[in-house]
């Protein structure tokens, strides 16, 4: 494969391999997004028709304003903004609500960027412990709120819980947690980074005050891209416009939103998100097929003696954590390539995306694979097991 320039190789792994990387499949571009990247790659490409009031989400050619409205409707929220990644969505909300010393409730499986957003605002994270099935429940969240109140004398300023977490791909009780949040009158941010764009998500149905999504994780969009959506009530605060006046020039930039730092996700990334949107709206209707495929795969995978699935079963998400300590790791202990033998075997079968060298616990994601590819993948693992004398149930 030729390089684009010296040192930058053509990235053709999606064309050449089955990619089971845990965080890449939902962000794989649609053909429409790839075409948008070709056409809108130049820097300020979205600004050709920027007219008064000079704000990204007000541009109507291409129809960026309409996209924002449709995005909010798609998510069951009143208003939405695009941001450079889910992390910037967390940051916008946390920066608005949290002051120095305030507590923020997060999951024990919270993404690190939730920690950083709280730290950036001077707040303190308080983690809700998991139950025995690695799930965050409403009851545990309520207990944590009471603990915080007892410890600090104040209620937390925000509850921020992942709908599906990045570690196990488990579903957490966001609807129950939203009810708890309402009872305590604490705003609730539902982190839908692994949900929005791959499965149906409706913020109002969940009871969330804020929904945050990731374009590059789950919306068939390039990185960085993300979404923050909210209700009209909270939009006034999080999407507040600047009041600042220059002391010398008396300049004002009244339409610009403070937390968005003015215009947010410009250029090809936004247009690619918009180009993927029709396909995304359609694909979330077929989440059930994706669940059927991952459950088929794990059932086949578990026929290999010693294999375990550490995520909740049956699977409700395509991101899945597995344990192969009792199978492939036993081979690795005496193999000259150690744990890399599994990567070698997978690569020989045109499969990539596993954590290279890992043969104990690791994650995979089957999102977007066809049935043919799923069956090929399952068979490949069974063939590797058989090659090394691991028993496979048939």
């Amino acid at each position, binding site marked *: 494969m030729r390089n684009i320039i010296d040192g930058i190789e053509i990235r053709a792994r*999606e064309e050449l391999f089955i990619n089971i990387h845990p965080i890449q499949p939902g962000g794989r571009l649609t053909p429409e997004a790839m075409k948008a990247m070709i056409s809108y790659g130049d820097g300020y490409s979205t600004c050709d028709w920027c007219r008064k009031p000079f704000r990204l989400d007000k541009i109507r050619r291409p129809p960026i304003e309409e996209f924002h409205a449709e995005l909010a409707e798609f998510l069951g929220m009143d208003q939405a903004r695009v941001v450079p990644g889910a992390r910037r969505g967390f940051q916008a909300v946390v920066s608005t609500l949290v002051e120095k010393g305030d507590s923020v409730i997060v999951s024990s499986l919270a993404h690190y960027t939730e920690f950083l957003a709280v730290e950036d605002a001077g707040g303190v994270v308080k983690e809700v412990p998991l139950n025995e099935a690695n799930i965050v429940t409403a009851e545990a969240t309520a207990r944590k709120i009471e603990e915080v109140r007892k410890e600090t004398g104040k209620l937390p300023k925000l509850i921020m819980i992942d709908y599906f977490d990045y570690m196990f791909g488990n579903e957490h009780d966001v609807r129950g947690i939203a009810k708890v949040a309402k009872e305590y009158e604490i705003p609730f941010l539902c982190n839908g980074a692994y949900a929005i764009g791959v499965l149906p998500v409706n913020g109002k149905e969940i009871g969330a005050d804020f929904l945050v999504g990731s374009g590059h994780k789950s919306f068939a969009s390039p990185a960085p891209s993300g979404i923050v959506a909210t209700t009209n009530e909270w939009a006034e605060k999080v999407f507040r416009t600047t009041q600042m006046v220059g002391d010398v020039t008396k300049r004002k930039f009244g339409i610009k939103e403070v937390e968005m730092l003015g215009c947010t996700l410009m250029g090809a990334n936004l247009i690619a998100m918009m180009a993927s949107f029709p396909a995304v709206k359609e694909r979330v209707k077929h989440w059930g097929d994706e669940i059927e495929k991952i459950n088929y795969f794990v059932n086949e995978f578990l026929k290999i003696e010693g294999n375990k699935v550490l995520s909740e079963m049956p699977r409700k998400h395509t991101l899945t954590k597995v344990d192969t300590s009792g199978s492939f790791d036993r081979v690795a202990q005496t193999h000259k390539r150690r744990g890399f033998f599994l990567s070698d075997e997978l690569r020989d079968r*045109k499969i990539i995306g596993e954590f290279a060298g890992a043969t104990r616990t690791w994650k995979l994601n089957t999102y977007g694979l066809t049935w043919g590819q799923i069956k090929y993948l399952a068979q490949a693992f069974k063939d590797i097991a058989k090659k090394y004398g691991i028993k496979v149930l048939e």
Partner: protein
Amino acid sequence: MSEKAVQETFEALFALTDLRQIFRETKPTYELNDEQKKKIKEVIESVRRSLDVIEQELIK
């Protein structure tokens, strides 16, 4: 330099993007069904047509 040639350049790139998508859907065995074979023929014809226009517009 004609607008037509520019338009056809994008058309060709977009058609090849559709081909790229077929690679993605059929990897790693690339066993094609009838519909995919038909689509590939359409892509090839479309790209050829675009190249002919580009050649006609810019060189001949």
